[in-house]
């Protein structure tokens, strides 16, 4: 390619009739689209980085948030997202194999590999839905959102007395308060029975609630006795994550998670749809008649880009 470039008469190239970039109009436009789309994702990830560094002391660790794995109990950080990454890399391989088959005008192979790419994409979108579900639903015990917004965790064997006369175990508090719907008012907490303790997030600074927490040595600040009761009574129990509250830490974490993985998931979904359209065209012999499978290459570029974005999301959301 390099040799060919040198032998070209540049004046004539730019004068028209030839592609200065040596690629077709369609592929070039796909590249230009990807440049702008990649800048959008860069903007998202950089703004995520901005708030993450700004709130570095209270930012949740993804490892402690995404710990579920289908059919397995217990704590499995990173495993599920590793599986999702594997699925997407795999579908990138099947896509590039479909492109290669297209170069050999091998229709059957294109159908096989493009079909597998679509299946991979659907599994990925499904996995993401599963991850969202668990993040939104949250844990049974939920978390305590203190009056100043700090997210703390309840510990100890105690019960909460409610305004309707009933009482619930602390371990079930999330389930009780998490399922509030519009028009369905929950009873509120009127008392705490038993030895309650409230675990504040690590390395917390003074948050303006009258507590002096300045020492670097303090890894986990624990409230007990009356202080714990007061914190529970003045705060609220939350469960799961949405755009307003997040039991795992600052709500911004949830906002960025929904926004960035949601935007990426939308790309995966539209990629699946586009791949499907091309898949139908391949089956209907469109590209056999046209004499080339360049369309598969173009959607291939988009599909690899979706994989590329996930590589970065995986690193900056889950690993770093």
């Amino acid at each position, binding site marked *: 390619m390099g040799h060919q470039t040198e032998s070209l008469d540049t004046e004539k190239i730019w004068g028209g009739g030839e592609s200065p970039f*040596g690629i077709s109009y369609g592929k070039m436009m796909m590249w230009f689209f990807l440049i702008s789309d990649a*800048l959008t994702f860069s903007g998202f990830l*950089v703004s995520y980085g901005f708030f993450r*560094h700004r709130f570095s002391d209270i930012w949740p660790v993804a490892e402690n948030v995404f710990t579920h794995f289908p059919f397995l109990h217990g704590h499995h950080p990173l495993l599920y997202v*590793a599986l999702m990454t594997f699925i997407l*890399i795999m579908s990138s391989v099947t896509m590039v194999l479909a492109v290669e*088959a297209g170069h050999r005008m091998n229709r059957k192979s294109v159908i096989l590999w493009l079909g597998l790419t679509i299946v991979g994409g659907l599994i990925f979108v499904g996995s993401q839905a599963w991850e969202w579900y668990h993040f939104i639903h949250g844990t049974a015990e939920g978390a305590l959102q203190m009056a100043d917004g700090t997210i703390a965790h309840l510990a100890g064997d105690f019960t909460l007395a409610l305004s309707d006369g009933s009482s619930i175990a602390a371990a079930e508090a999330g389930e009780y308060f998490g399922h509030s719907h519009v028009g369905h008012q929950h009873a509120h907490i009127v008392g705490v029975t038993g030895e309650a303790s409230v675990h504040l997030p690590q390395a917390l600074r003074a948050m303006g609630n009258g507590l002096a927490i300045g020492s670097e040595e303090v890894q986990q600040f624990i409230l007990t006795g009356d202080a714990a009761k007061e914190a529970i009574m003045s705060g609220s129990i939350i469960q799961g994550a949405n755009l307003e509250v997040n039991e795992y830490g600052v709500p911004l974490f949830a906002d960025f998670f929904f926004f960035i993985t949601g935007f990426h998931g939308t790309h995966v979904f539209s990629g699946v749809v586009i791949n499907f359209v091309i898949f139908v065209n391949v089956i209907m012999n469109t590209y056999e008649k046209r004499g*080339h499978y360049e369309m598969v290459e173009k959607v291939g570029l988009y599909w690899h880009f979706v994989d590329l974005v996930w*590589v970065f999301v995986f*690193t900056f959301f889950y690993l770093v």
Partner: protein
Amino acid sequence: MSDHSDSAYEFAVHHGEEEGKKIRKRIWLIFWVLLGITTVEVTLGLIWKSLSANPDAIWGIIKWTFIILTLFKAFYIVFDYMHLGHERRNLKWTILAPYIIFVLYLTFICLNEALAIRDFDFLWWNS
């Protein structure tokens, strides 16, 4: 290149069975590279805290290892799977230059500012 109405590029570069075998070999080789890097990343993510008695001290190295491994993966995806490594030089730079210039700058300035604002707020809260 004498006939300019016959464009300098072809819509799809056709290749034969022999050439195809070589290309497929490379595709699978890169797949193993990508899978290997991801496995290393996940393993490192799971065990890095047990690598040192003082995990906080090595976090910087771990973080940069993750980022460099990610850039390796990105390189293989873009240069081979997206074929950019085989495109003309002017196209390569048209695509890569915006990131090398703007995104690196944006990243640097935003993270730097975020840390400055954090420290400013910290002083303000404690004054």
